């Protein structure tokens, strides 16, 4: 089956075999920021991407489901030459230890901050509840989300000026 979609802002077509998940397809395209940590049962969050702005688990998302829709992976959010403020906030807050969960965490954060730039602690914890991290104890991740929200608010203000 041939699927047309948009990935990181670019129109893409891919062939998919029965049983293929979005995770399989993204990895085959060389998008290595999606990670695998739970036998494709959607319990670790390391494979999180945004589908039409909403955080989804690519390892349990059937590939054909993305037809005609917009996929954002960590590679589309920013890179080291031009990082997104959320990526900078995670790096600066000490929220990245081993980093294996970071792309998923950051995309879940993006989904949250697209909805509100003044998230409560409860909203942050809820938005990231599907993303497991074994390194940080989440403390610095919470800090990073708040720092990112502040940076994006500032950016918004600057743009409005």
């Amino acid at each position, binding site marked *: 089956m041939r699927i047309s979609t948009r990935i990181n802002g670019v129109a893409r077509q891919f062939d998919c075999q029965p049983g293929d998940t979005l995770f399989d397809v993204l990895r085959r395209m060389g998008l290595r920021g999606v990670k695998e940590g739970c036998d494709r*049962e959607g319990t670790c969050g390391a494979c999180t991407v945004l589908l039409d702005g909403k955080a989804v688990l690519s390892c349990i998302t059937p590939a054909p489901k993305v037809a005609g829709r917009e996929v954002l992976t960590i590679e589309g959010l920013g890179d080291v030459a031009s990082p997104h403020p959320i990526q900078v906030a995670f790096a600066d807050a*000490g929220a990245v230890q*081993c*980093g294996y969960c970071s792309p998923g965490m950051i995309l879940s954060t993006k989904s949250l901050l697209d909805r509100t730039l003044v998230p409560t602690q409860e909203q942050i914890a809820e938005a990231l509840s599907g993303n497991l991290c074994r390194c*940080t*104890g989440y403390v610095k991740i919470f800090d990073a989300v708040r720092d990112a929200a502040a940076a994006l608010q500032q950016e918004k203000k600057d743009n409005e000026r």
Partner: protein
Amino acid sequence: MSADRTRDLQVVGHSVRKVDSLGLACGQELYVADYATPDTLVGYVVPSPYAHARIKRIDATRARAIAGVHAVLTHEDIPRIAHTTAGQGYVEPSPYDNFVLDSKVRFVGDRVALIAAETLEIAEEAGKALDIEWEMLDPIFDPDHAMDEGAPIIHDEPEAHMPIPVPYDPKRNMAAGANMGDGDIEQALRTSPKVYSRDFSTQYAQHCPIEPHVTLGYLDARNRVVLITSTQVPFHARRITAQAVGIPVKRVRVIKPRIGGGFGAKQEVLLEPLVASLVLATGRKILMQLSRAEEFLSRTRHAIKVGIDGGFNEDGTINGLRMRVQSNTGAYGAHALTVMCNCGSKVLPLYRMKAVAFDAKAVYTNLPVGGAYRGYGATQAAFAMECFLDEVAEDLHLDPIEIRRRNHILPGEGSPVFAALGEGKPGVEQKIGSSGLAECLTLGAKAIGWEEKRSKPGTGTLRRGIGMCALMQGSAIPEIDLGAVHIKMNDDGSFNLTCGATDLGTGSDTILAQIAAEVLGVDETEVLVYSSDTDLTPFDVGAYASSTTYLSGEASRRAALAVAEQIREIASEMMESHPDPATLVLKDKAVVAPDGSRVTLGEVGLRSLYQANQRQVAATGSAISHKSPPPFSAHFVEVTVDIQTGQVRVVKYVAAVDCGTAINPKLAEGQVEGSVLNGISYALTEEYQFDDKGRMRNTGFNDYKIFGTQDTPEIQTILVPTWEETGPYGAKSVSEICINGALPAISNAIYDAVGVRLREGPFTPDRVLAAIRQKA
């Protein structure tokens, strides 16, 4: 004192950004699986369905005939070489009781055969197509009966042996034994006014790095086996892989890319020999990655029973303590001896006593295999010791903090345990050089509100309680562990720092860069770190035993000092007045003389490589340690206990930690917070459930709960600076100690809330409710 000595530091003591963090946040840094190419085959281990059985006959003809199968290896196809998977120094203090493949399986999930195939599905199909005639053997699951007369013998193979002279008796399922004593413990227990005896037990648990074990292997153009692998111990992985598959060390190259967490699980040389075997058999590139379910059956925290007998005076001072340890090492003895010894060596010296005894055994069972896990025995024994002291304090009408204050070790003091208990041999005598424990106790108590909140459980359904504990760990294994760092200068005055030290997310690359940068008078961004590749980087034992900051950090300092000396000589040649090099100072990316003359490091670099008296400015620093300075910590926790459901919730957790100088305070806090939450998760939810055939039933995150964002309480870290004279810029270790606090502190807090003592983890609603009902 510490503040005076750290005040003028430019890079050390500052929370600079972790060098790899932005690349990780952008998904650009690469992990093992990211190196796979389309022609890579899948490596697969056929798991044993039985806990204890012998392979009488195995026929792989049908499996090999399946399209897409490139190799099927059984124990008949490869050399049979006894080794240990424990990634420890040579000679490893763990029994040689493991083979790449054997004619016997010893736990459910043990290796039956190895397969290389085009896809995982094909490999699994080939596994099912193996024709195996089994001889079923009686299993033994209960560690209390593993050494009974007539119990099934798990390691009856003639090769099983301990490579060092310590008690080992596989015919009785004994994987290790250790005894030490100082003073007359019997007399101390007989004559003390107050004598207590309590027993505690801890459960199986898994590290759960979000990236499970994974190894990629191939033959390079010089017919060498290259392993890109998720390991904490690249040099041990090279040595043990070569040994296990029977090829020379020089034919193996181990590369560690970014690692998705380890926590001790990857101090085990598990997949590397398997992948090497498949690479040698096929000549193809092989990727083997464990599934989450398989990861649970890789290595675990040893389930340990710890008993303590103690003789006390009425004022709470300790006359003598005896610690009794029974560790369940599962089917193989990896780390059995050393984890068990750590129960004593990282817990008993925390307190002064006239007599001490330690009596420990590790037993084989047909259950998953114990291994290294952050805390490494101290976690299990600190639970026992710190709950025990809480009970004693209560009986003697002492505040729990006060009983610690009356007994804890102070700077200048030693402990007979240090000298008596080492890594399978006597330990190394040491006196405490630095300790901030007294201040940790004070600051932690204040932060939790000890005075105001203690012993006020309330009367509703939700009872509140406060608990605490004191902790120590070590920093590196003295007289054994080696860390080495190489630094060379580039033509723009930047530096390459290569090290075998293994950053698995801890931030050690950054720490080592900061230490070198401080010496060289530059920002840490001028120091380009590369770790670890056995072909390219100097030796390091790897990331374990809380050694990297203390030991590899010292190696970095020494390498940088040697490089700085070379730079000063060149700078002196370049300056008109040719000042005494010893008078020159490296700062702000330049070399400055007392008379104000100045050359930049860029100018030094260019001259040294291109212009005059050319030579490579470079040096290697090596460090071993003659002691293992303990970090100290005091933990305080506030919990609520629902007396109707038994549900325990942590409201607030305070960890006050003395890690000497925190080279990077933010990264140090990250180590504390991560280990604290892992400890809380272990204390409240994590445990293996087995069926009566020895099968683990909860092999996924749905059934084996690890804490997520919504479970996380407020965690407050208080770094209490001290100056450890033997550490780089006064630093000690920080990575392990804080995983040890949650079990005892929460158990003690539950007692404060509802008056029941939980001496067995985890404190699940069922267990807590049962204890409450039993009391009623």
